């Protein structure tokens, strides 16, 4: 008991007495640990964050009808297969041929909020339709009919079973926005599902459902297979262009962050080690004196290592906290979302710090204890 008390006392006294040196050592370890925990957190969290960014490419899964159409319930059933937090946007579409000024135009009815979420790249001049009486038109349609925001258009529809003398169904809608995508969407007009039902006089279900899901390609194809197997009316397909390319690009980015993390960590750890070595080398004289007084190599190593380990643990703790703070700052700045806390990283950072410090101290101590105390004390 006495011996242990003395040991602890020696270590604390040594740490306190040589304050400036210890601050340097502690700083070095803390920097190393900050970089370690910060970069590892970023590396682990980055795929998740980046995957969310890649959702700006829009839908990566399509639900098509095996027969003609499917209903909202079918979609809900399909969605149950996918973990809720991975679903970014779901937009079911019903397409019908309508007429504007007697010219046929393809009209799509959809859930506007869902479309906004699943196709974030759509640029709308004006605003999205907020009520059933409002409509969004594609840029080509707007050019053809010279439509501008605020114009009112009359949309007509002729039911398939309409007789000779039956009048076409017709509704008047206000154009709230003009859709610019650079794709085929510019040829369509977009209205709400309720309005489409009113216009056509029937609820015919949907033709296709676009889904934007933030998961890996392998998970996605699993979901698609399950949905297709579970449902008799749905055929789930991956949008290869989006999923395949995402896998390629994301893989590269992940490899980049991994390699950067490894190189930065390696260099920083060596840096920490050299600093620790410098701090300990300075104490060769002390070691020589102790040896001359009859201390065994073992007890000297024990004491110095004890010191090193305390420093390593404290520095590691400090670094782990700072590292998390840094990763959080990066995440907030770059991705506007907070990072997920990884509790295991705290002990892991401390263990690595202690190991690096231990190895860095051991080398100079060993070389000091190997030498004859008389030589060390003489300063040779």
């Amino acid at each position, binding site marked *: 008991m006495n011996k242990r008390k003395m040991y602890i006392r020696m270590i604390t006294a040594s740490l306190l007495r040589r304050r*400036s*040196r210890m601050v*340097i050592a502690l700083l*070095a370890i803390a*920097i*190393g640990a*900050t*970089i370690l925990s910060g*970069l590892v957190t*970023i590396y682990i969290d980055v795929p998740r964050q*980046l995957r969310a*960014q*890649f959702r*700006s*490419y*829009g839908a990566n899964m399509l639900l098509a009808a095996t027969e003609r159409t499917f209903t909202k319930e079918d979609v809900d059933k399909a969605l149950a297969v996918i973990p809720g937090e991975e679903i970014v946007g779901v937009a079911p579409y019903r397409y019908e041929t309508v007429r504007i000024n007697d010219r*046929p135009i*393809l009209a799509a009815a959809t859930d506007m909020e869902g479309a906004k979420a699943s196709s974030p*790249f*759509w*640029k709308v001049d004006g605003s999205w339709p907020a009520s059933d009486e409002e409509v969004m038109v594609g840029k*080509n*349609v707007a*050019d*053809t009919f010279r439509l501008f925001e605020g114009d009112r258009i009359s949309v007509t529809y002729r039911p398939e079973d309409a007789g000779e003398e039956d009048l076409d169904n017709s509704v008047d809608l206000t154009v709230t926005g003009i859709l*610019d*995508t*650079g*794709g085929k969407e510019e*040829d369509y007009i977009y209205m709400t599902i309720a309005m489409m039902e009113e216009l056509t006089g029937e609820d015919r279900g949907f033709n296709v459902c676009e889904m934007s899901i933030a998961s890996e390609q392998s998970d996605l194809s699993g979901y698609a297979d399950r949905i297709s197997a579970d449902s008799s009316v749905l055929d789930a*397909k*991956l*949008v*290869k*262009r989006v*999923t*395949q*390319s995402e896998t*390629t*690009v994301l893989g*590269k*980015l992940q*490899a*980049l*962050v991994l*390699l*950067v993390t490894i*190189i*930065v960590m390696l*260099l*920083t750890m060596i*840096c920490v080690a*050299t*600093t620790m070595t*410098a701090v300990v080398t*300075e104490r060769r004289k002390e070691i020589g004196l102790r040896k001359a007084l009859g201390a065994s190599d073992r007890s000297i190593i024990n004491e110095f290592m004890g010191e090193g380990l305390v420093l390593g643990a404290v520095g590691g703790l400090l670094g782990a906290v700072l590292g998390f703070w840094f990763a959080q700052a*990066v995440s907030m*700045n*770059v*991705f506007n979302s907070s990072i997920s806390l990884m509790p295991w990283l705290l002990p892991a950072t401390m263990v690595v710090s202690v190991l690096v410090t231990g190895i860095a101290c051991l080398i100079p101590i060993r070389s000091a204890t190997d030498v004859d105390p008389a030589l060390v004390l003489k300063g040779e």
Partner: protein
Amino acid sequence: MFIRMIAKAFLRQWKKMVMIAFTIALGASLATAMLSVMMDVGDKVNHELKAYGANISVVPKNASVISELYDIEDGDVSGEYLAEDELGKIKTIFWAFNIVDYAPFISTEAVLDEGSTVTVKGTWFDHHMALPTGEELDAGVISMRSWWEIIDGDWLDEQKLGSDFCMVGTGIAQKEGISAGQTIRLKGPKAEKDLTVAGVFDAGSDEDNEIYVPLDTAQEISGLEGKVSSIEVSALTTPDNELARKAAEDPGSLSVSQYETWYCTAYVSSICYQIEEVITDSVASAVRQVADSEGQILNKTQMLMILITILSLIGAALGICNLVTASVMERSQEIGLMKAVGAHNPAITGLVLTEIMCTAVIGGVIGFFAGIGFAQIIGHTVFQSAIEIRAMVVPIVIVLVIVVTLIGCIPAIKMLQSLRPTEVLHGRA
């Protein structure tokens, strides 16, 4: 005498000096590698994002909305077309260097032996072009449809196979029982032709129900020689900003200097504008799905790399600083002795600084080259291409190493100056 003292110090304490130089080299290499990678990451990721295919689509000005939408009987024939012989001009625009790939398309209907009608698209697969600039370019769908999965056979290698081959979408292949190596007869509006199936692809989209043939084959069977109905262009672009958005609405609304800035920046809108200038009667527009997302991901990646670089720079700086402080401090005894024999503070400071600076320069130079090495490792492992080392990196690393080393010396020198020789020599400090 000064030089001799420094030279002596190096010889006597070479181990210590090596360690300082080593640490500075580590820091410098870290800074060099991270700065180089950070500055080049935009270009590299931009190239990777080309996997998403074209970000610009070019169509004839008078393409009728209606015919495109409804494929009205022979709708395409009555529409307007772009001229095939103008295609090479795309590589002559101001931002020609940023155009990495492009492919023309022409679409027609054809009847298979069994009597079913299919959409046939003529395009380039890996069309070889010798440009007026002396540059050579292989462009076409092989690189622009990187997500196509070839489930049977192989890509149609235009340069090797010639034009009597085709690629069939998996939808048609399944329905008609077509497999690679088989010969199919396509009966177009004007002519018919026997084609060997080079491969069957799965595109995961409507393209699965189409047959892709070399451009001249499609022109031959449809009778549309020398015409193309659309061009897809894959270009490296700068993410849009306020100016680009303003210009995209109407380039005429810009002032002269704004116009110049816009025209000479690789915004997707200015590249579109320049393509319209060289291709007669064309409308080039950004494919927002690709162009917008590209900008967003580029910005995020760059920002991420900048922040990681800043962290590593701070780490490198503190690491160097720390070691310099530690190694100067441990020389208190030597300095005490110097003071005891009458050395003045400025003389001692000068000596210590010169020693450390010499070491820093050596370490910095070694570190710089090591850093370039690390950057290339990253470049080749991740992007399979070399990282371009910007000239900017050199001054930044030099300033960083010098400033950081000097800062590292400050606390140590302060301490040395306040040393009292008697105490030091007595062994009490």
